[in-house]
């Protein structure tokens, strides 16, 4: 007898995979992306099906890893396959007798080299993107990077992180609407990824009308207040709240919430990390703003960010530079 949660998760996974295939069969300009979204959801359902088993055998773990990896391959997500999907297959294989594991892996072992070749080809055709990601994906990417991001996404439309990077490149290129659409594409693929959630929240104040943006922030704040939000979400919230505070009658409330978000983000950041120092600086800066004073750049020196402060012009809005630094999407190598 299959436990009900497992039965439901397996049924959902099966339905999503069939829906993905049907989407590809029906075709259309966005079919591969839409199918990728469905395959990503199927991979998550497969994970839930595994978690529903009380004590899964090594074979059940391997079968689940194979199925999830296959969904991510078919979901055109190179990062997810290469960073975790394939790793899970290899790790779970070690607990299964060699001959048995080889028989179970026969199909995925045929899929993987073809996928890898397609990925290597796509990366080889993106030298500017390669250099940009190795440099940490700084704002203001050159045009060649934009072109290569688009070309890469044509081959791997399920690559959530590249959609997020495209959002960032659109934003710094001045196209907020396209940045908004791209981060939503990333979120449809990976709805729980904290850095995507934080970046989307940051764009709220730039993209939505003020009242709507304030409602979105009001919806996000309870998670921060409960101490359950990630540092990335707190960071996105701070930027959006500071933006809105400048033109809102709810200025004090918004700055107060941003202050609390900075404290929360600092609490969750690793100790002695740059992130923790950045959030501490923002916390002190926001305290000054709440008291009606202009935050002095000396705060950065006090928080151990002297090297950053020394390279900033005196008149620079250091709060914005610091907050942008905390929410920057960091591309994988």
């Amino acid at each position, binding site marked *: 007898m299959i436990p009900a949660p497992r039965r439901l998760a397996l049924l959902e*996974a099966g339905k999503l995979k069939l829906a993905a295939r049907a989407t590809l069969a029906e*075709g259309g300009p966005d079919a*591969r992306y839409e199918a990728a979204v469905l395959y990503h959801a199927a991979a998550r359902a497969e994970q839930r099906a595994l978690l529903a088993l009380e004590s899964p055998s090594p074979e059940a773990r391997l079968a689940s890893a194979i*199925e999830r990896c296959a969904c991510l391959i078919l979901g055109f997500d190179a990062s997810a396959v290469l960073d975790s999907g394939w790793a899970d297959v290899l790790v779970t294989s070690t607990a299964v007798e060699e001959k048995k594991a080889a028989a179970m892996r026969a199909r995925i072992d045929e899929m993987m080299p073809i996928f890898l070749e397609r990925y290597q080809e796509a990366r080889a055709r993106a030298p500017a993107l390669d250099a940009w990601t190795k440099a940490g994906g700084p704002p203001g990417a050159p045009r060649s990077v934009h072109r290569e991001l688009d070309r890469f996404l044509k081959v791997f439309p399920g690559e959530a992180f590249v959609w997020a990077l495209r959002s960032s490149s659109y934003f710094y290129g001045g196209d907020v609407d396209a940045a908004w659409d791209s981060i939503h594409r990333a979120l449809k693929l990976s709805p729980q990824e904290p850095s995507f959630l934080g970046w989307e929240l940051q764009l709220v104040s730039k993209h939505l009308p003020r009242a709507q943006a304030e409602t979105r922030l009001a919806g996000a704040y309870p998670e921060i207040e409960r101490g359950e939000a990630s540092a990335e979400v707190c960071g996105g919230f701070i930027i959006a709240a500071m933006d809105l505070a400048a033109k809102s009658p709810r200025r004090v409330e918004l700055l107060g919430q941003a202050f609390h978000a900075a404290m929360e983000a600092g609490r969750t950041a690793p100790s002695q990390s740059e992130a923790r120092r950045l959030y501490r600086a923002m916390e002190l800066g926001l305290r000054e703003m709440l008291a009606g004073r202009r935050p002095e750049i000396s705060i950065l020196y006090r928080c151990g960010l002297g090297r950053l402060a020394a390279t900033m012009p005196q008149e620079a809005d250091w709060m914005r530079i610091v907050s942008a630094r905390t929410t920057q999407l960091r591309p994988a190598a």
Partner: protein
Amino acid sequence: MAEQRYALERLYEDQEPDLVTDTIPAVLAWLGATGEGPALSFSVRIGAKPPKEETLRLDCDERALESRCNGTLDRVRRMQSRQTADREHITELAAYGLALVGLSVWMPGRRAITFREGLPPDILLDDTDGALRGVEVAGRSSGGHGALRFVLEGTKDKPGGKRGQLVERSDIAEAHVSLWCAAPRVSLLVQVKP
């Protein structure tokens, strides 16, 4: 030769509707079934030693199918419009749908619980840890029984075929292979394990 008659809309009752909805348009598109035309006939070879020949007459009442799932006919038209580079998905999806029909006709009462992409069998009937039961599926546009036999048994260059893949898996207790060809309309249903 025995004849089995099956109305495609019955699949919504015999199997999980969630696993049926997306396969029906592909079956109709793949076989070119339109309107209320004559039933589609498949010559089905069941088992191996010796095989039993039966005819499957498939009634595809589009109105009945549309009433079970709105938009079915639009989806058929999109699939038939040939604007997609991923045409092989129609064949695969249609084969899944026909495999569900085969399951309902020749193994009444057995129901698919999920579909798999990464490891055989494609359709799981029972996922008991270490004793899986299921059906491996494939479709071919042409080639008849000869092409299906290659899928089942493999070729000189690539021996084993689907039978070999399933037989060597010790975590599978029961396995069937369900193969379908559109031109000529033939099928091969074989239990390869136990």
